[in-house]
């Protein structure tokens, strides 16, 4: 199935114009208290949610903006306001 993503600048475009940037994992861990485990968790580990997840995208073939969306990984549809729904 195709995926349509809404870029905050360019509007709705085919996902093939974008580059997926991973699950949203919050801010980069603080350098001072960093352990191999916490760094590994930030860099490699995923929740792989079968459902709605918050994730990063870059409009690679467009304006170049990095932004987050919510998407349902089961049907590949962007979800506008997941918090409001639940």
């Amino acid at each position: 199935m195709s995926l349509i993503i809404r870029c905050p600048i360019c509007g709705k475009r085919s996902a093939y114009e974008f580059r997926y940037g991973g699950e949203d994992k919050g801010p980069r861990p603080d350098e001072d208290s960093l352990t191999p485990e916490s760094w590994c968790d930030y860099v490699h580990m995923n929740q792989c949610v079968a459902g709605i997840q918050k994730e990063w995208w870059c409009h690679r073939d467009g304006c170049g903006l990095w932004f987050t969306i919510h998407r349902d990984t089961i049907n590949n549809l962007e979800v506008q306001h997941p918090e409001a729904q639940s």
Partner: protein
Amino acid sequence: MGFLMLKKNKRFWQRVALQSHYDAVIIGGGLHGLATAYFLARQHGMTNVAVVEKEYIGFGGAGRNTAIVRANQRTPENIPLYREALELWPVLTEELDFNLMFNNCGNLNLMHSEAAMNAARMNVATAQFHGVESHLIDARQCKELVPALNISEDITFPIIGAMYHPPGGILRHDAVVWGLAKSASRLGVHIHQHTETTSIGVENHKIVSVDTNRGKIYTPRVLLAAGGYSAAISYAMLGIKLPISVLTIQAMVTQPLKPILDHVVSSGAYHAYANQTLKGEIATGAHMDPWPNYTTHTTAYYIKHQAEALAELLPCLRGVKFMRHWAGLADMTPDMAPILDGNDLIEGYYMDCGWGYFGFKSCAATGKYMAQFMASGQCSDILKPFALRRFAQHRLMGETAALVNYSPDN
């Protein structure tokens, strides 16, 4: 008539009642779950084992893959496992008393640049060092082996040579599922289809039970072998995150043709591979969605890509029709190597996942060693490099030469 024959013949595996206790519960009736169950029963006398499968056995990658096998991987950690897996096909065909239709036609991995040839030289040297037959050949030799191949300069990525791996080939993937299930069942393993694991019970860092939609099972051992669903299960049921991205991967077959292709041909640059099945179809793959999803949907985008690639590599296929097109899930890790682990974070909890698109060729040997691990509690040396802790220890394996554009990180 077919219906009557089906009714008369005995099922390959028995339908049995769900017990409340098992010595081991295997989550997932796919290749790795069934192979582990088979070896637990056959080699370790552990027969009080349940395989719980949420749909039917072979529903996952086991029934969707293109059944290509080879042992010319890139790293010294991976090659021994794949080598043993490759050597096991003829042994299993006999042991299971089931025709797995192993066709060791050989694999040709095409190279389209001098840089790729150099990388292949290293692959070939590593394989040879580990006793796996692998050669570097030039374009003319490719043409001799596969006359249908287009070695002209006049294509997008002209062929310069190939990594030739004679002992690899293809099998009948369904036969592997059925053969393993039949023998495991005969040895006493319970295969429960339409039985979905809904939670895993842990007390004092030990596995105690597995909940399913058909009831609770008490058990001291669980193997996570749920293919593309493993990472989601691991996080949702145990809070353990895995370094996995789950991508939908597609494949297709053409209408059946007379024999024209007697090798598996693959190309990284064209991002395509093809082989001719015993039925005559050209089986070809494999596009991956460049973002994670669980849709298992096919795309028109990919049909076009594949038609363009095949029309250049194998021009005799121009005008040939695609007949079927399907997709499954690939659980990719950052180093293209699986996660094989156990008894570490939780006593009695074992993992066999992260196989991406390599989990068919590896299932026999992995099942053998995972069974040994689960029966004895001791991890054999061949599995040790694949522990989950390698990611925190920065010991990722260098299988990524085969990398395709699958994640945000490359």
